[in-house]
């Protein structure tokens, strides 16, 4: 009896696996898919959960109203429904590859990238198949041809260039300011260690000291790395970190008396991967002086049309499950970009004849000054060879526990390959 039960269980599992491997009959109704690969487990889990929530909210909004946003007049075709399709890739290249093939077989015409490992694994494949994809990862590697992956915030070298611009502008010392990298141990974190970045810092008048690497999610405070900065008299530490790395790093720096207002004067500047709206509530005044470039406006600033829209969608669709993570804004920008690409492509080609390459060429590449309600630093513009959607970098600083906008600097586009 026990053996028959086991055999039955094995049979059911086999059928489930086998059936899942066959492609679904895509596009039976007039449905277009948005979404793509998500990293709902792993270091980006919290960020991606917020991104997914935004995708789902935006799809519901467009399906119900057929509008693109409250401040826009364009309409999405009335006879087409949007559906969010996603799979968890665990931020692993190998998983992302099979997920991509599955979603492509299901009829997806565009894609999304969840982070650096996935971007590097898929970028050539996406180009071969003509898929356009907004990306949550923003390393300079995206600039390298082929360029069908798009960012809605500046790539990280441009983020850091803006911080360097700001810092040198308010430097009052008599010697050259000393700069070092304090970045995380991942492909994304290391991606700033390119000759162009060093050359730009030197051109601005910095003395480059070296690099210190911190684990993506540190299990012990990075005391050694911080002490190295202190011993080398570093004035500005630049890097790529996620909040899980930035928070323990800054806490330890404060304990060691390192900060813009502490005994040892040093400023820590990070890319948008460590957004201040997540950092600030967790750190409060302990994080005073921490600078982040390329981030989004905070979710409580409803004077910004895009933020007001985000809040309205959340109130409407899941009032009891409020998503307070700032990456909800990232998800909103991605969803807006994907739907805009589909809308533009549908103007050129009927639904039945739409292909990924058409969505790329007549959709993504034709996006000009997409008004995001000020969610992004500037309206988004893409094209062949232009994958960085914004032209400016917003720089914020934590002061007295509050996020203060320091200003907007132009994208320097220092990484050219």
């Amino acid at each position, binding site marked *: 009896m026990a053996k028959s039960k086991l055999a039955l269980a094995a049979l059911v599992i086999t059928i489930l696996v086998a059936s899942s491997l066959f492609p679904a009959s895509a596009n039976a109704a007039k449905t277009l898919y948005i979404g793509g690969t998500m990293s*709902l*487990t792993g270091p980006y889990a919290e960020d991606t*959960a917020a991104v997914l929530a935004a995708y789902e909210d935006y799809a519901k909004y467009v399906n119900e109203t057929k509008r693109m946003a409250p401040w826009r007049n364009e309409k999405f075709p009335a006879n087409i429904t949007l559906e969010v399709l996603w799979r968890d890739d665990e931020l692993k290249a190998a998983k992302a590859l099979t997920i991509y093939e599955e979603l492509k077989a299901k009829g997806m015409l565009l894609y999304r990238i969840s982070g650096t*490992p996935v971007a*590097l694994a898929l970028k050539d494949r996406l180009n071969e198949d003509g898929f356009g994809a907004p990306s949550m990862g923003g390393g*300079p590697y995206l600039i390298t041809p082929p360029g069908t992956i798009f960012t809605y915030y500046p790539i990280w070298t441009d983020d850091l260039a803006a911080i360097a611009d700001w810092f040198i502008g308010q430097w009052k010392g008599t010697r050259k300011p000393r700069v070092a990298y304090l970045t995380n141990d991942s492909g994304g974190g290391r991606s700033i*260690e390119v000759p162009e970045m060093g050359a730009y810092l030197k051109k601005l008048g910095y003395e480059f000291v070296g690099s210190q690497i911190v684990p993506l999610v540190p299990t012990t405070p990075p005391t050694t790395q911080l002490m190295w900065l202190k011993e080398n008299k570093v004035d500005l530490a630049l890097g790529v970190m996620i909040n899980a790395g930035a928070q323990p790093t800054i806490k330890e720096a404060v304990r060691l008396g390192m900060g813009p207002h502490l005994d040892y004067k040093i400023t820590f500047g990070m890319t948008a991967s460590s957004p201040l709206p997540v950092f600030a509530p967790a750190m409060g005044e302990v994080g005073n002086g921490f600078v982040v470039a390329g981030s989004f406006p905070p979710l409580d600033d409803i004077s910004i049309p895009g933020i007001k829209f985000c809040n309205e969608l959340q109130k409407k669709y899941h009032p009891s499950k409020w998503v307070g993570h700032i990456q909800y804004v990232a998800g909103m920008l991605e969803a807006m970009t994907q739907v805009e690409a589909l809308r533009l492509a549908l103007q050129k080609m009927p639904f039945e004849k739409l292909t990924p390459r058409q969505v790329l060429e007549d959709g993504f590449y034709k996006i000009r000054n997409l008004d995001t309600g000020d969610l992004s630093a500037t309206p988004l513009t893409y094209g062949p060879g232009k994958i960085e959607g914004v032209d400016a970098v917003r720089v914020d600083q934590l002061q007295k526990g509050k996020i203060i906008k320091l200003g907007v600097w132009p994208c320097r586009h220092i990484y050219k390959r």
Partner: protein
Amino acid sequence: MGLRCGTFRENYAQDMAIFRTRLHWGVLFAFLIFLFTCPLFFSDRILTVMTMIGIAIISVHGLNILTGYCGQISIGHVGFMAVGAYTSAILTAKLGWSFWPALPCAGLVAGIAGLIFGLPSLKIKGFYLIMATIAAHFIIIWLILQLYNVTGGPDGLAVLKPKIGSFALNSKASYFYLVMAIACLATSLAINIVRTRAGRAFVAIRDNDLAAEVMGINLWSYKLQAFFIGCVYAGVAGALLVHYYGFASVDQFPFMDSVWYLGMLIVGGMGSTAGAIFGAVSLKLLDELVTIVGPVLSKIVAAQAAASLALITRGLVIILFLIFEPRGLGHRWGMIKAYFRLWPFSHEE
């Protein structure tokens, strides 16, 4: 003279034969025909899954020789895959070599790296060896990141698809054939390595290294041989992986994958070539299943919780196998075969 009943092994050659009956040969040919006609009736997606399984099988065979047969537990296996991957990537992308000589070189360089990191295995074992192999992974990745001009550092390296003459293996089907051919060759080699003097020495070292040494087995030499062979397999698998991606990046070789490869070995059964295959196939398919089930479940529970199902399920499967079937699926397969061999005279244990 009585009627002969059953399969008799009357000499050493017959006793050592892998395929003993016509049925064995028939099943082998049927399987190979099925395998190599898959691209005719399977979609690109299934071919991608099967290609990834094929690469995992090659890698797990290496780990099985090192850990399953020789008892040298390695959690740095993916690091050696990275060595092979970058060797092939550099030779093809930077030096303009063809893929075909680059592939064995990838295996060779990974094997040499294995020899270097295997050196401590003479002095240390068990938990301490595990720590040494973990260190190997991080040292390798660190070196790759530092050698910016050679490896591309964090930017990685764009890698070309293999070519046969002017025919590039660009399609899913063509790469599937390549991987499956190498996986079959790797399986055949793995089976035969175990049947050699070295293979028997590996097993002796695994079961009791002191006794093995007393019997005259050179521990130093055989342990290093196991590291070399295991890492050659890893290097070849790594090279195949990056040529499939078309890009080499350190992010494609996360430390956790080494743990999952060990998990495949546990589920399949350590010290069994069939087990290595069963382990790779079953955990990869399980991975596919839970990836698909996650979004369905997200209609009931939070998306993040649903996605975590993959991690929980994989971990649970490994734990359940450790408790209820520590000898793995390979052993279960052996029992099923024995049951049918004796049928209809089978009996309960």
